[in-house]
């Protein structure tokens, strides 16, 4: 396996793919579905918000290792954050995955594990899929977002 592949599929990614965190339904939460019609991936994101702060986040659905791990890591990262902080985090995450191949990785905690995606342009939308669903909740209260 090449170094670039190991950088893409880091142990953290493989772990979150095999054992996704917060892979459950939150009945009372706001939801949005993200779809990648080209590969058939569908992820539903659940977000519980109280007083403009995320109290719980989860997801369900089907996706590749990158999309699943990204959703899993995202639900861990946003819990306890204010909506403004979630917006800022989403922007920094997006900046990381579309950055130049050799750009330094931002300090994003465990989310930085997805930094290898920038060397695989075709896979950026896999990493972005759960975040786009999350932003649909934050900005529009939910709905359906598609990569195409």
């Amino acid at each position, binding site marked *: *396996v*090449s170094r*670039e*592949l190991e950088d*893409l*599929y880091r142990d953290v990614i*493989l772990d979150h*793919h*095999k054992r996704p965190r917060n892979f459950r339904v939150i009945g009372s939460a706001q939801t949005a579905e993200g779809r990648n*019609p*080209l*590969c*058939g*991936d*569908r992820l539903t994101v659940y977000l519980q918000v109280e007083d403009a702060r995320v109290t719980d986040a989860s997801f369900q659905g*089907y*996706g*590749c*290792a*990158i999309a699943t791990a990204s959703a899993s890591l995202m639900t861990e990262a946003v819990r306890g954050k204010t909506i403004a902080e979630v917006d800022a985090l989403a922007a920094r995450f997006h900046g990381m995955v579309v950055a130049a191949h050799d750009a330094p990785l931002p300090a994003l905690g465990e989310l930085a594990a997805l930094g290898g995606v920038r060397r*695989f342009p*075709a*896979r950026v939308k*896999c990493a972005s899929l759960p975040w786009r669903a999350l932003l649909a909740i934050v900005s529009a209260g939910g709905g359906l977002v598609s990569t195409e």
Partner: protein
Amino acid sequence: MSRLDVAALREEFPILAAEVHGAPLVYLDNAATTQKPQAVIDRVARYYTEENANVHRAVHALAERATDAYEHARATVARFFNAAHPHEIVFVRGTTEAINLVADSFGGLHVHAGDEVLVSVMEHHSNIVPWQVLCARAGANLRVVSMTDEGELRASDVADALTARTRIVSIAHVSNVLGSVNPVRDIVRLAHERGAAVIVDGAQAAGHLPVDVQALGCDFYAASGHKMFGPTGIGVLYGRAEHLESMPPYQSGGGMVGSVSFEGTSYAPPPYRFEAGTPDVAGAVGLAAAVAFLERIDPAEIEAHEADLCAHAAAALGTVRGLRLVGTAPRRIGVLSFVLEGVHPHDVATMLDRIGVAIRAGHHCCQPLMDRLALPGTARASIAFYNTREEIDTFVAALAGVREFFA
């Protein structure tokens, strides 16, 4: 093993010598597009270097050369598909445009409220959506004939789905996901008995098995140049002369007219009636070069070599733990779809790409088929005559590693 001299043929495809991520390219995405032999690349360059002009317009020497080259290409393509006459060949952009043309023009003429159009569950989106559009416009009904779990479309199921209201049956010759070779000749006979016309989507067949439109008896046959070793942007619609002559234009403008006045316009005879605007002359000429290349090879040898590779690949894939082939119809050719337990098709494709192996992952523009199979998508390896057993072995050996990596 076949008698095809694959090593010599590969020499004629410059891109096959390329390296990808430091490894030799193993190109197994031929169902998406095929590679081009030097003869096609050179022919297109020579057209622009020595012959370029607009066709059917001017009297100068270059225009005559371009027109000759374009009409020679039409005759070459007609011979390849065994059309009765070159005027039964309409140059289009590809299979998609060919089907849209038939749906709009022939469909508009013959499909009315309450009528039915029949397609199969394994069709590509380009052989579904144009018929949905037609049916919505005409108030007609789109009906779907299913297949067996193995991916076989049975003529008897088509017979059962035909009704007195069926006007059009549109069916893939070869499935781009399952590799199934459909019983087109039987379907044509059954449809004609009920008075329905048959359109064959040949995108996945031409260049892989011999296509004889007269023997098939179909009313229309559509194919894409880029999937038969020719350029992108050029395709073929074969239509029986009696149909083409009765059909109204699809697009209108220059080149497709008899005479134009503000009181009224008469249309040119086929195929020009369906070729409004300046056509893709270089594409047509390049496609003819691809056909000439294919005609140097015995089509039975191509079929035998691809059958050998397909059988070799199916046997080797069967040894990969957790792998399931999708599409095991009794009659099929070089498309191998599969799912690998615990690994998403896109992760498979990314892993293989890094060792130079190009395959496709996703729904392959066949979402209704994926629904029928209850799969979000598949990984797909698709072969052409220039592939080798060694390439299949490289591909299959890598798959075992992929599964371990994600296990």
